[in-house]
Structures are given as C-alpha cells and as structure tokens.
C-alpha cells in the first residue's frame, strides 16, 4: 500500500450482537485501509462478517443493538464516535453503498427517477428540476438507454441488470469518495455481471473514487481488486495485493478456497479439493485459530493459541494470521499448486498428521 494517507482506515473494529442464544461475534478485531482510486476486495463466505463490517462503516448496525468498538477513520474523522446527524451527512454523500439485491433495495411504489432525485436533494440544496437533470445524466452514465424516458418508470419495469445500474447511479449521484459494493453482481447473469464490473471500473477511473467490493467470488475480486482481505469467522486471516494473494497465498483457508473452485483456464481433469467441514457458528467459535477444525495442517497447540495477523517478511502489505512457520506455509502451497492433495503436502513438509 502507498505511503499516502488512506481515505478509510478501519482499526481493530469489533461488532457484537447480544442475542438470546448468546453473543454473536460478527466482526472480531479487523484492521484495513483503503486509498483513493484503489479497490479493496473483501472475500469470505456467508457469516464471515464481511457485510457487517461495511454496514458498520455506514453506521447501519447501530440501531440493531450492536456493541461496536474500534475506530473507523474516514478522512481522519472517526465514524464510530460520530453522532447520527453528522453521519447522515456523510452517508450517501461521501460514502455510498450498492447492495446485492437491487429489487429489494429499490422502493417498488416510487418511480426510479423519484428515488434518485430524493438521494440528490437529501444532500444538495437544488431544485427538483436540477436534481432530475442530474438523475438523467447519471442514468445515461451508467448505460441505461433512453434515460429521459426510463427515469419515469417503476423498478419492476427494469430488468435485473438495469436495476443494478440504477442503484449504482443512485450511489454515484453525489460523487462519493468511497463506494462500498456488497455482492453487487451475485444476483446477475454472467454477461450482465461483466457489464456491471466494467462499468464500476470505468467510473472509478473517471471519478477517482475508492471502492470496497465484498464478494464470495474469487473470479470477481481477481478482476476488480488491487488488494484483497480474506475473512473467516469475523477476522481477516490474510491480506495481500491481488497478484500476491493468487500466486503465493499463505493461509491454509485461502489456499483451500483457491483449490476448491473449478477454473475456466485450468485443465479439466484436475480434481477439486474441498475444504472439509462447515464454517463455524459465530456464537460458539472454535478456540485458538478459528480455522483449526477444518485445517488439514492444524497442530495440537493451534486449538489453544490465537494467531495474530502478522506481516510476511519479504512482501510489504502481505499479512497472515497463521500459526504455521512461514517456510512451512510456502512449501505447502508449492505442493498444492503442483496438484498435490493436502495429505501429500503434509507428508512432504514432514508435519505430523492433523487431528481431524
């Protein structure tokens, strides 16, 4: 990451939801930075805390009785401590968000245009006519054909791809400095997904904004992100530049993800290596390293010691939270990459078998 001041810096953020069955530790001490004009990809499965962390950035978890600690510094201002009215001025203006399902995030009874006009007038003292001009301009910018006519249609008259474009138009209407996109293309078909991703990249180039893209799709982050943070059970387990993460991952979970997806550019005969087990409950998390019950390389003491996110010596910006020796991790990946199974890799590096 560059030495300049980051646009957003999240420091040791924790979000906990007390509930009937116990406390849900949704986000458990994560730290990351996003710089202007750059894209951070946050990758993780359902329940890894990736969405909660971004909702918290916008103050959207406050009303749900969440216990929030840590700092979210946006241009030097701590959003966690900010009163609601000040946060409202930032939300939708300096920081905007695009959600996964465009149908449920657009109001079905209001025309698309009216919703965008509202977003403009919430932050700008402009006339309705001016706001409407701006809305038409934005709909055109995101590639909706004939925007002057379509602005008066209802969300149900739009296709899925067009709704997502309209959501992006609404998010961009006040030229935010940071755009948070939570699974922006998951509900879309591949050809439309490619269009939306290309659109986001183009707009980023033109407007110079920072993007945080949250997804479970490794293909999408490989295309979009400059840096990637991999989350598991509320924590960041690995963070690195995109090139580094895909060529030299060090956390067994990251390695597992990369080996478990079929790829269009790999030989077809290659077998998939699934990650055994299932993601843990965020109420009863495993002790020690949260990944140890599913980790093929876990050692007995990994169930006791909590790993910390530590820098990897030779690559700036690459951090891993793993109790294995760096040298062992690298040799494991070398074997996996060559097509070895986790068992073969384990034997090759001379570690005793995992207690799974």
């Amino acid at each position: 990451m560059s030495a300049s001041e980051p646009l957003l810096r999240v420091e040791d953020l924790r979000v906990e939801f007390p509930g009937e069955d116990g406390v849900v530790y949704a986000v458990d001490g994560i730290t990351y930075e996003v710089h202007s004009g750059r894209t951070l990809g946050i990758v993780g499965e359902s329940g890894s805390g990736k969405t909660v962390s971004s909702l918290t950035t916008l103050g959207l978890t406050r009303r749900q009785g969440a216990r929030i600690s840590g700092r979210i510094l946006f241009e030097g201002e701590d959003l966690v401590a900010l009163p609601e009215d000040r946060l409202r001025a930032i939300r939708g203006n300096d920081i905007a968000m695009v959600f996964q399902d465009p149908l449920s995030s657009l109001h079905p009874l209001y025309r698309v245009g009216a919703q965008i006009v509202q977003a403009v007038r919430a932050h700008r003292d402009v006339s309705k006519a001016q706001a409407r001009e701006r809305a038409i301009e934005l709909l055109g910018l995101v590639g909706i054909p004939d925007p002057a006519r379509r602005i008066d249609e209802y969300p149900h008259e739009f296709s899925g791809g067009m709704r997502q474009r309209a959501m992006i138009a609404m998010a961009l209407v006040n030229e935010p400095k940071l755009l948070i996109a939570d699974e922006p293309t998951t509900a879309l078909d591949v050809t439309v997904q490619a269009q939306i991703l290309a659109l986001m990249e183009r707009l980023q180039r033109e407007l110079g904004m920072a993007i945080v893209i949250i997804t479970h799709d490794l293909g999408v982050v490989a295309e979009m992100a400059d840096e990637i943070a991999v989350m598991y059970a509320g924590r960041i387990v690995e963070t690195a530049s995109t090139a580094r993460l895909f060529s030299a991952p060090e956390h067994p979970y990251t390695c597992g993800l990369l080996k478990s997806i079929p790829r269009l550019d790999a030989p077809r005969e290659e077998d998939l290596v699934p990650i055994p087990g299932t993601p843990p409950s965020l109420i009863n998390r495993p002790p020690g390293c949260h990944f140890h019950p599913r980790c093929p390389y876990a050692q007995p003491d990994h169930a006791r010691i909590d790993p910390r996110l530590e820098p990897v010596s030779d690559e700036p910006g690459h951090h891993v939270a793993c109790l294995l020796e760096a040298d062992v991790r690298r040799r494991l990946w070398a074997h996996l990459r060559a097509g070895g199974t986790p068992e073969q890799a384990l034997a090759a590096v001379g570690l005793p078998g995992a207690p799974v």
Partner: protein
Amino acid sequence: MSTAAPLVRVRDLVKHFPITRGIIIQRRIGAVQAVDGVSLEIQRGETLGIVGETGCGKSTTARLIMRLLEASAGEITFDGRDITRLRGPALKAVRREMQMVFQDPQSSLNPRKTIGSIIGEPFAIHGLLREKGERKREVQRLMETVGLNPEHYNRYPHEFSGGQRQRIGVARALALSPKLLIADEPVSALDVSIQAQVLNLLRDLQRRLGLTLVFIAHDLSVVRHMCDRIAVMYLGKVVEIGPNEPLYAFPRHPYTGALLAAVPVADPSLHGSERRLLGGDVPSPANPPSACRFHTRCPKAQPLCSTQEPALEDKGSGTLVACHYPLSREEVAQMGVRSAR
C-alpha cells in the same frame, strides 16, 4: 457412446406459458415462449450440461423431461418409449426411473420430517421395502453412500448444514436407483468451500453408479468441470451443443463465445487482457426477436439473421451450431475467451 440408443431423446419440444388478461373471463393475450423447439439426446452414462442465462428455458426443459410440466408440443422418448402423453400408473412407473436434485436444499426438504423418512419417502410412494427394518437399512446405506452419518437417521433438516442438506436431497434422489438424475443448479445456493464437496460427490456417484446425469447451471466453470457434453440455450432454443473440449476450446456461436468471455477468472495475471463484452439484456421470452433470437445483441449479425432462422448443424469443429456466421478462431481469441485453445 453413440452406438447404443440414447436414454433420452427430445424432439422439437415446445412449452408456451399463456399470458392472460381479465379476472372472470380470461382472454389469452400472448405466451411466454419458455422452450421453443428444443431437440437433444442424452446418452447413457454421460453428464449433459445445460447452460444459459436466466429465462433461457434450461429449467423448463428439465421439468418437461421429468414430466413435471406438460409439453405444448414435441416428443420425449425415455429408454425407448414415448412418455410425452403418459398418465396415471404408467407415468408413475416412469417417474421411478428419473429423479431430480433441486437448487435450494432448504425449501426442498420438509422441515417436519426426519431425514430417515425424507430419504425413505420414495419407497413409501412406490410401496417398496414395506418391512420397517428393511427400509431403515436401505436408507442408512444411502446415507452412507452420500457421505452422511447413518446414525443421524432421526434428525431433522434444520440440524444439518447447507452442504449436508444437499447430500440428503441427493440420497433421496438415488433411493429408487434411477436411470436419470437431473440436478438443477445443485450448488449455487452453497458456500464456496462447500460447493466442491457436493460437486465431487455427484461426479463420484455418477462414475460409481453409471448414472446418466443432466447438470443445469449458470456457472460455466462448474459445468466445464462436470460435464461430458454441453448444450447452450438462449431464449428457449439450443444455440450450440457439443462435447466439452471443442465447445470450450473453440466456441462457434457468438453467444457461447460471449458467455465464456464474460466469466471472471481467478487469475489476476489474465486481468487487463481485452474482452469483448455483450451489450444489452436478454429480450423478453414473451416477445422474442424474429429468426435468430440472438441477432439483436450479436456483434456479427447480418440482415439474413433477422429473416431466416439458422439450423443447428455441424460447422466442422465438433459442435452443432445454430448460426449463419459462426466464429472463427481469430474472433474467439479477440473476444478474450479464457478457455480457448
């Protein structure tokens, strides 16, 4: 493979869903042409993939083959006999031979029934293994086959994770030893780390039991991994069909090429290479474009494409293509198809 008769043969299959207006007197004002003239064969022991975007008719085609929907026209032959118009006991007998695994393991399992009775349900429906101990033994054997712990016989669906629930669905589908298994988006509701478990299970079962598998998915990387042959559908029609290798290495239909070029690949070193993206959205199946239905979005469209429908035919590269102007190798390379060779 081609010497034996195919297990399933579908000829000119059509399914139109009527669009009506009026509450008491319902006038028919149009039809959604979900499937419009699909012909294909499914060979014994193969895995046939059906891919395409939302609304292309892939799920409808599967439901027509399963006789869960009535065809508007066309003919379905299963194991040598015409099943298009079968009813009553004859239909029930055929249904034993074909089973389905659904997308959402949450909604396809009855939450009030134990796993044992869910997996044993097919035996109850068809009056098999009436003796209780016998049925339980068979269900537990099935549970073991799909990698579930047979001791969990008396548990309920909510006690299982998504991936395990999908295994329950697979066990139920296998109960009657069907000849044909149709899996409709079996992994798209699952977490990434779980998908590979279910994919490996299906591939393993298919090899071990010699199943004929129809695999429906929108994820082209998953389909490539799983399937021997693939049919690409667009707006109710098959636009290209052929064996895995030529289809992915040298797609001939501009739509197949565009689909493959659009898949994001988990390799940043490929990022930045030029890709040709498809513009616009899929037109409405209630009012599809004339002749070749892809001509409104096709970069190669000529006047002929909107007047004359192309036939599905061999263009000399191993697949059947419905296109007047199929792609050349140079064009495939220019589009940025990552599986091209």
